[in-house]
C-alpha cells in the first residue's frame, strides 16, 4: 500500500515535472515566435508606411508633371469634330456638299 503510494506520487511528480518543463519551453517558443512575428509585422508596417509615403510623393501632381516633361513630348489639343475626316473620300464628299450648299446660298442671295 505504502509502496504503491510512493510509486504513484513519484510518477505524478515526474509527470508534472516533465509536463511543466515542456509547457515552459513551449511558452518560451511561443513567445519567441510572437516576438519574431511582431518584428516582422513592425518591419512590414514600416515598409508599407514608407512605400505609401513614396507612392504619394511620386504620384503627386508636381512629380508626375516633371516626369511627363522629361519622358514624353506628346501634347494634346482640342479639335472640332467637324474637322475630323475618316478618309480622303470622306473629306472630298463633305467638301463637295459644303460647296453645293454654298452655291445654293449664293444663288439665293443673287435672286434676292
Amino acid at each position, binding site marked *: 500500500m505504502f509502496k504503491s503510494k510512493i510509486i504513484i506520487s513519484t510518477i505524478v511528480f515526474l509527470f508534472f515535472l516533465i509536463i511543466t518543463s515542456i509547457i515552459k519551453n513551449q511558452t518560451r517558443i511561443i513567445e519567441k515566435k510572437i516576438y519574431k512575428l511582431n518584428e516582422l509585422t513592425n518591419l512590414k508596417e*514600416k515598409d508599407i508606411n514608407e512605400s505609401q509615403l513614396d507612392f504619394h510623393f511620386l504620384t503627386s*501632381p508636381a512629380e508626375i508633371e516633371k516626369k511627363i516633361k522629361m519622358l514624353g513630348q506628346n501634347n494634346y489639343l482640342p479639335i472640332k469634330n467637324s474637322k475630323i475626316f475618316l478618309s480622303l473620300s470622306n473629306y472630298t464628299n463633305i467638301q463637295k456638299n459644303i460647296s453645293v450648299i454654298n452655291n445654293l446660298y449664293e444663288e439665293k442671295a443673287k435672286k434676292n
Partner: protein
Amino acid sequence: MKKKQKKIKDINQSSFYFEDYLETNKKNKSLKKTDSLQDRIYLLFFFFLSLILIFSIKIAHLSLSTSPTFNQKLSSSKFALIRRDIVDRNGILISRNINTSHAAVFPKLVKNKKNFLIKLRLNFPELSINEIEKKLNSNKYFYLKKRIDQSEKERFWALGEKGIKFEFFQARMYTHGNLFNHDVVGQVDYDNYGISGVEKYFDKELKDKKILRKPLKLTLDTNIQYIISEELNKAITTFRATGGGALLMDVNTGDILSLVSLPNFNINKRLVIKDKQYTNKITKGVYELGSIFKTFTIALALENDLVTPETIIKNIPRSLRCSIHKISDMKEHPKNLSVEEILVRSSNVGSVILAKKIGEEKFKEFIKNTRLLKNPELEIEEVGTPHKIKWNKCKLETVSFGHGITTTPVQAASVYSTMVNGGKLIKPSLIEGRERLEAKNLISPNTSKKINGILRKVVSSENGTAYFADKNGYYVGGKTGTAEGYGNKKNRVNTFISVFPTNKPKYTLLVMLENPQINKDLIYDYRGVKTKAPYNTSGWNSVYAAGQIIEKIGPILAINNKEFTNQYVAEKFNN
C-alpha cells in the same frame, strides 16, 4: 473536556491488554516518516501544479492579449504612431509621421575633440563649428543636427566617432512640399505639437490614441490645388504681381476644394518668416474688395422688391458728390441703365442710387447677416479680423460699391456661394463631414436665381467686364473687383469671384492678384480682336487667370460640359 472524558474512561475500564512497546514504537516512527514524505510529495505536487497553472495562465494571456509583449519595447523596428495622417478628399496623403533621428553628441565619449571638429568641418561645412566647439568644451549632451535624413545619418556614421548618438524621433512629413500653405495644413514642432493651420486646430484629435489609424480627411483636392497653384503662379509672373490668392468652394456644402496663397514655402522646412507676403491672403488677409460688393447691393434691391433686373434707372449722372467725396465711374456709361446693366458694366453711380433706394438700415442689417465684418469661422486659427466700420455720412454710398469696407476673401467667396445656391447661408470648411448649412436664408431662391442670371451676363454679354472667363460650356458667371489697398493707396487688389456653371451653380472660384501690372507683351484675343490690355483692371488680369484655371479644372470637377464634348475631341501631336 477531553481529559475529563479520558479519566472517566480509565475508571470504567474493566479489561486491559499488553502490547509490545518496541514494536509499537517502530510502527509509530515509520508512520510518522511516511506522513512527512507524503507531505513533501504533496508540497511538490502543489508546487508543480501551481507552476503549470502559472504557465497555462501565461499561455492563455499570450494568446488572448493584443497588447505588445515586453520584447517589443526593445525592438528597434518598432513604429508607434503618435499622430494621425492627414489626407485630402480623395485619400491622397498630405502629411504623415515618419521615423527619423537627431544627431547628438556625448562630449565625454569624444576622445580627440580637435580631430572630431576637423572631421565635422570637412564633412559638414554647413554646421557652425565654433558653437559646436563651445558645447563640446562644456561637456554637456547636445544636438549636432536635428531631423537628419538617411544620407546625413550615414555621413555622421562614417565619421566613426563613439560620442555621436542617434536619437530616434518622429518627424512630420508633408508629401507635397509647398503645395499646401503653412497656415492651412499647418506645421508641427519637434515635439509633434501642432503650431499652425489644421495641425494646430485639431492637435488633440490628431493625437487621439483611439483613432490613430484613422486619417483626418480634409475637403481639399490635391490635383485641383496643384492646377490652381500653377496657374496662379503663372499669372503672378505674367502680371508681375507681388502675390496672389485663389479659393475654390462648393456652393452647396461650403467645402473648400482649394486654397492657395502665394508666395509660399516648403512646409517640410521650419523657417522664421517675417515677410508679410507669406501670410495667408485668403483667410488672414483683410481687403477692400471693391466692385465685388455691387452684387450684394443689387441682390438686396431685388430681395426687397424695389426693382427687377429689367427696371431702367433713368438719368444716371456721370458723377455724384457726397460730402467731400466725388463718386464717379471709370468708363462712360449710357445715362439710362437697367439694374442688371449696372452690375454688368460695374457702374459705381448706379450702385449708389440703388443703395439709397434700399436705405441705410436695411443695408446695415444685410451686411450684419452676411457676417462679412466678423472673423471668418474656419478650422484654422490664422484668420483675419475685418475693420469695424462706422455708418457715418457717405458710408452707405461707398459701401454700395465696395469701398470703405473690408473683409477677408474667404468670407466674400462664401457670401457669393450663398447668393447663387438659393440663398442658403453656408460656413466654409476644410474638414469633411461637418455641418455647415444654416437654417437661415440670406436671400430668397427667386432672388438667387435672378442674381445667377445677372452674374452670367457679366461674363457673357458684350458690355461685361469678365469676358476672358467665358469658357466654352462652363456657363461661368461672376463679378470683378478692382480696389486700392485699404489705408495704403499704393497697393492694388484685383479680384474676380466666379460662379460656375450658372445654370446649376456648383462652385465659386475666387482669384485675387496683389499689385498686378499691365503686361505689354501679352496679346489678348478679345472678342476675336488681337489686343493689348488697355487698363490695369481685374478684367484684364484676374479674370484672365480665372479663365485659365476654369478651363483646366472643369473636366476634373466633372461638370457636364455638353457644349464642349459635342464639338471637340483631343488631338495628339508630337513636337
